């Protein structure tokens, strides 16, 4: 059913269609509207046969989901940013135990400095925890990915994160086609756990595993994710058959056939990039886009297939590995490892902490890739003047104070040194 609806609410309704049995809620912006709406649906009876539990922390939220999942219930929770870090131990644990929890990440920056706006630092911080991670481009895809995520997670007995950009998706009111229950029921079978806490067939789950078997346990996790590379495409295909639209998959391409520059990105920014590409194509620049949906498992083969050919690849990402650079760019490098005639990869960090990624900035950036390709990491729209002043000040004054506050004052006053001095 087509609805003008806030992204969070659309996702909530899509999640409800998956018949989750245990939902754990703990507030953190920007995912709150999802669980609020789910809670409301449980209260009103729109979502039946579901335990909605208000917990006291994200760590507990995922822990409750772990217990519920191990006991055979379809379990769901959502979080973001600090919350994801606070539950980090449980994130690894759910994956290690092979429990198919589905969790929405309302992507948000990680402090300090504290920041509630969107970037991908949170999801990237947990990318090696053993979860599958799918990034939504639109609210429609956000809804659809949750339905696919439950199927994928339960098929492989491996938890899955659906990553949706905070505010940009969660708080945007757009037209979304919320599927019918019967269709979802056809697509998503009931949860059939591979192991379950059952007095009639007792087992011990969560053994201590030493050097004799730990590597094998880890290998099997890794192996399952390689299986997911096939299943993600397969389930996206079935989804299309059932619902009639393209959603999910490992990656999507846009105008790549003759491109000499390819952009690689994840999440909602792809919309802006496509608009920019359309405008540049109108100017005769052969540029195309690869939208990554799956970050875990990372689709090395699929990516290599589409990236080999053009001369330049620009990787735009909303995350930064401090001291290293762009993480996604590094992953793209991996896809091109040992490939003859591989394109040059240019890394761009953009949109950190919710900074808008504008079409004019993208225009400048993409043109530069053609005429003045760069090595290292480029920071889009970095205020170099402020940086220079701060660096100068820090060099002069030992007790220079907190950088974030210094920058804010400079931006506000243009003063040479912080006003507080």
């Amino acid at each position, binding site marked *: 059913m087509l609805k003008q609806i806030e992204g969070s609410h659309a996702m909530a309704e899509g999640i409800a269609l998956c018949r989750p049995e*245990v939902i754990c809620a703990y507030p953190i912006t920007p995912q709150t509207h999802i669980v609020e709406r789910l809670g409301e649906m449980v209260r009103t009876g729109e979502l039946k046969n579901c335990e909605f*539990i*208000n917990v006291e922390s994200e*760590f507990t939220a995922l822990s409750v989901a772990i*217990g519920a999942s*191990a006991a055979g219930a379809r379990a769901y929770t959502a979080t973001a940013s600090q919350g994801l870090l606070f539950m980090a131990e449980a994130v690894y644990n759910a994956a290690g135990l092979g429990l198919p929890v589905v969790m929405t990440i309302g992507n948000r920056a990680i402090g300090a400095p504290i920041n509630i706006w969107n970037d991908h630092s949170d999801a990237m911080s947990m990318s090696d925890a053993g979860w599958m991670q799918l990034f939504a481009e639109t609210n429609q895809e956000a809804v659809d990915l949750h339905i696919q995520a439950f199927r994928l997670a339960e098929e492989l007995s491996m938890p899955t994160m659906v990553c949706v950009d905070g505010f940009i998706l969660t708080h945007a009111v757009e037209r979304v086609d919320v599927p019918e229950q019967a269709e979802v029921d056809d697509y998503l079978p009931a949860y059939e756990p591979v192991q379950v806490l059952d*007095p009639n067939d*007792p087992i011990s789950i969560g*053994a*201590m595993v030493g050097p004799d078997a730990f590597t094998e346990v880890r290998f099997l996790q890794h192996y399952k994710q390689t299986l997911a590379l096939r299943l993600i495409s397969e389930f996206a295909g079935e989804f299309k058959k059932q619902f009639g639209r393209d959603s999910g998959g490992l990656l999507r391409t846009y105008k790549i056939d003759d491109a000499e520059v390819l952009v690689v990105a994840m999440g909602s920014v792809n919309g802006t990039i496509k608009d920019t590409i359309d405008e540049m194509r109108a100017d005769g620049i052969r540029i195309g886009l690869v939208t990554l949906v799956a970050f875990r498992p990372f689709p090395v083969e699929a990516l290599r297939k589409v990236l080999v050919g053009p001369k330049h690849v620009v990787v735009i990402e909303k995350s930064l590995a401090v001291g290293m650079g762009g993480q996604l760019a590094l992953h793209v490098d991996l896809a091109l490892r040992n490939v003859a005639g591989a394109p040059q990869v240019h890394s761009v960090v953009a949109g950190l902490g919710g900074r808008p990624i504008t079409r004019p900035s993208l225009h400048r950036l993409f043109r530069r890739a053609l005429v003045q390709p760069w090595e290292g990491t480029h920071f889009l729209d970095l205020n170099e003047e402020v940086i220079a002043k701060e660096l100068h000040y820090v060099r002069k004054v030992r007790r220079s104070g907190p950088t974030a506050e210094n920058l804010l004052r400079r931006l506000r006053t243009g003063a040479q040194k912080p006003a507080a001095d």
Partner: protein
Amino acid sequence: MTNGTTSAAIQKLHFYQKGTFTVGNRLVSEADRSVQASIDRSNALTCGHRACQGCGEALGARYALDAALRAAGGNLIAVNATGCLEVFTTPYPETSWQIPWIHSLFGNAAAVATGVAAAMRVKGRPEIRVVAQGGDGGTTDIGFGCLSGMFERNDDVLYICYDNEAYMNTGVQRSSATPPAARTATTPAVGPQPGNVFGTGKSVPKIAVAHGIPFVATATVADLHDLERKVVKAMGIHGARYLHIHVPCPLGWGSASQDTIRLAQLAVECGMFPVFEAEHGVVTGRRKIRRRVPVEDYLKPQRRFAHLFTTEEGRKCISQLQAMADRNIAEYRLFDWEGDVE
């Protein structure tokens, strides 16, 4: 048989000469015997586990879970925090558990149990009961947030803390359940104030009572009947329940392996470990001291307190510990003074 008042008085004592405090008693009916006395008891925790010799926690866990298992008619799921109990029972490729059991993390046993209970409810299997268990570290420290949340939501979980008063699994470090003056690896018996610091630590049983949950009790491995009665009582209630079992640790306490039960007994008899129960925030029962002893009797067999017996300062510490015990005794009315008729 005679009748009348004498007979009634005798009847009261009828089986009490032998077996009041023993595990079994051939003179009472099967139904009135302890679960542990049963020839076909479940042994939820079976042989071959790797607990140290004389482990109080292994004993307490089997006592509690066998009783819970019987009370639940076999429908029991256990959630375990990281710690000795987890490590010594489930090193790959062997487990000592005979019931469905899950270990997730150190600090989340209460929360995982909440999830299991929620699953049982949603699956329409409310007869399957959930027990969470952990050591004092996993309960009073790192797992405390989850525990408190489970309490305040009144989730249908019986949480059992096996309190051996320090982080034994990691090599005997101080926890918030470590008694003052005790030597641990992080409160060494050196310097002007050797051992754990006075005025620190917390009583999680008391905090549990403050949550107003349906049932809170303390127990020890020295009084099986009291422990089993409390487990059975707890299992008869739905909602959040807390059982705090004092389990001596020969390794961490520096005591002889055969003294495990004796020490648990002395801890109660000197007043250091009050055994009581509470319902909905109100203390409703206490286990009276039977043969009161000075705290020295309890401290002396433990090397973690050995430094108290060698110096004048140590003697003062013993007085302080005695004062703590006396406060417990007064607070919970653990001792019948002459003329104190209840």
